[in-house]
């Protein structure tokens, strides 16, 4: 079935790419934003710890990158970047959509929660600057699930042969 020169399968695959980039990106934006607000607050109290806080602030940003990654791989695989899209069956399109779910959904929630953990870690660093290593580790704990989701999505995308 083709509408306006694009099959439903192709549209679904694009939806998949959009979902992974958008959801994970939203989560990271929220997480980094939250951490940034806390960083600003802690820095007014104790400006010297600011460089240590930067690391904590960046941490929730990786989910957005993972989502972007899966999105780009989908686009590359369906040939959307060359301007000459491959034929995508309906089921294949649905499969792409499914493959986007782990990195999109887990990316969103893990980024938000990682942002919260980062913010709490910043408060810790503001009081005890020597604890910054531990604060970073606490925050990185959340990242594991985003990495696992990235892997799952990646394996799923790679399993789809056009």
């Amino acid at each position: 079935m083709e509408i306006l020169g694009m099959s439903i399968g192709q549209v679904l695959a694009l939806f998949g790419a959009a979902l992974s980039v958008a959801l994970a990106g939203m989560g990271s934006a929220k997480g980094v934003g939250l951490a940034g607000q806390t960083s600003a607050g802690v820095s007014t109290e104790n400006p010297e710890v600011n460089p240590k806080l930067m690391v904590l602030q960046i941490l929730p940003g990786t989910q957005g990158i993972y989502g972007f990654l899966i999105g780009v791989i989908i686009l590359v695989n369906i040939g959307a970047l060359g301007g000459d899209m491959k034929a995508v069956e309906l089921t294949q399109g649905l499969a792409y959509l499914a493959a986007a779910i782990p990195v999109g959904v887990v990316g969103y929630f893990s980024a938000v929660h990682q942002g919260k953990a980062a913010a709490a870690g910043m408060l810790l660093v503001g009081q005890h600057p020597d604890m910054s290593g531990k604060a970073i580790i606490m925050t990185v704990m959340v990242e594991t699930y985003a990495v696992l989701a990235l892997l799952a999505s990646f394996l799923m995308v790679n399993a789809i042969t056009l």
Partner: protein
Amino acid sequence: MAIAEMKRIGLIIMRRDHDRLLKFAQRLGCVQVTQTEVPEELMLRKESARAAEIEAEIARYQWAIRKLVKYDPVKQSMFSALPEVSVDDLEGSDLKGAEQVIQQAEELERRAGDLRGQESRLHVAIEQLTPWLQLDIPTEINHNTQSVTIFTGTVTANGLKELMAAWSGQAAVIRALEPVKDLQHFWAAVYLPEATRFLQDLQEIGFQQISLPEGQGTPQAQREAAEKALEALAEKQKALEEDLRKLAEQLPVLRLGYETLKAEYAREEAQGRMAHTATASLLQGWVPALAAPGVEAAIKERFPEAAISFFDPQEGEEPPVLLRNHPVTAPFESIITGFSMPHPSSLDPTAVMMPFFACFFGMMVSDAGYGLMMALLVPILIKLMKPSKGGRKLFWIVGIGGIFTVFWGAMYNTWFGFAPWPTVFDPVNNSLPVMALCIGLGALHLFTGLGLGAYLNIRRGQFLDAIYDQFSWFSLVVGLGLLLLPQTAELGKWMALAGAGIILVTAGRGKSNNPFKRLLSGLGALYNVSGWLSDLLSYMRLFGMGLATGVIGMVINLLVGMVMQNGIIGIIIGIPLFVGGHLFNAAINVLGAYVHSSRLQYIEFFGKFYEEGGTAFMPLGYSPRYVRVQDAS
């Protein structure tokens, strides 16, 4: 390659020499002074009032530095080199100049506070004048006379209209003024005999009396005067800023003074921990065993009458922990200290951890181009920036990690996102071997940790514990792994069973004498197999992070390729895009690789053996923040 052995030092010296001794010890930088416990009645402890004094002074210096740093003509960045001073500068720096700077800063702060007060008073005055601006009567003549009463204040807007209608043609002049918010201000002059009746009418429409602000001239004129005064104030504030800027040129003097005081404070603190009689002083503390002969000789040379002796730590005494490693692995000590110092009776895992850390770091950055840049730039940057000790360690970690990155980047065949040669490991198109490699390296890492745990047990003579706690798990996990391959399944079965059996029977030892309860806790321990599974899976991040670098690098090149097709303009935009994009990708991945590699050590690796709880060796020395002490010759 381990935790440095520590000796206790006991040192008796003439009381008059103790200041000189502490200065000398501070230069040596390898004596940690500990509290000397002596019966109160035997000793005179020199009350260290000076320490509190210095602390207060340090707070003043810090305040002034923070105040002035905004105006610092030399912009300090994270990467700029600190000024270098000699130990003599620190010991003998004259604080008079710094004191003057602080007094000036305090004076400027007073002036600034004064100006702020004036400013807010003027703002309040303007605020109060606003409702009366339409009144063209100078305030100084705007008051009751013998025959006229003046009313000023607010009423409801409708009420005022009715009032004006009702009183028109009578002996009253009423002016409605600008409404401010929802309050209708007004002014009225009423012939005295009518005033009482007028007031009654006013009260019916919600009259609130408000007096005009005091002043000369019409409200409009007063407001203009106030605004002019504000402008003058702003000028003064600008002049003040200029003074601060000029004062900020003296920041180096302040910083040196701050460090001088800090060093004196450290000596004063050490002095407080010593014990003193009228003529002699006793210092007790810790010295690394290797440095002990040198310390003895150096002190004997300068203080011939001093009595020095060294002892081994007593049973149950916990010496401070100092990590000693080969120069190549030493930078990685900071990874350990960032977590927690090992217990003095335990071991320093730096040397064992270093290859894993650097290898994992390289796998996660995984772009040979970035690795080359790191490995080449780090020595240059260290030359240029002269970072502090801690900073230098971090640089070297990145530099050594860069070498490993080149290796893994070549394996993955990623050079700045390009793939110029045939690929050994292709994570994008053939990911299973790479994943297996990650899990395999993870298993090696975890078993190394287990091996260190076994080593600790064996070193303490607890051979059976090594079998119960480490060998059993090794057998179980390896056995389970062998089960996956049909050729080795039989062997795997027996290894796993043997391991599980040992754990089942022995994990509850020491917890209870009841054999049933022991079995129960053995079962609980066996559940930890799931922990091993999640530990192993955790190494998949090596794959995920490596993949991320490569794909983003590829996307950057793709975008740049598209832009570059558009002739000369495309090239002009494309080159900065290429450089910026890869810089961003490298930065975010180096940070991620560092953090995640640390995590794999702290959680997965250390979880298998690490015994924390030591306190770091803190010798009396210099630890300046704003300057760098020249290496003593």
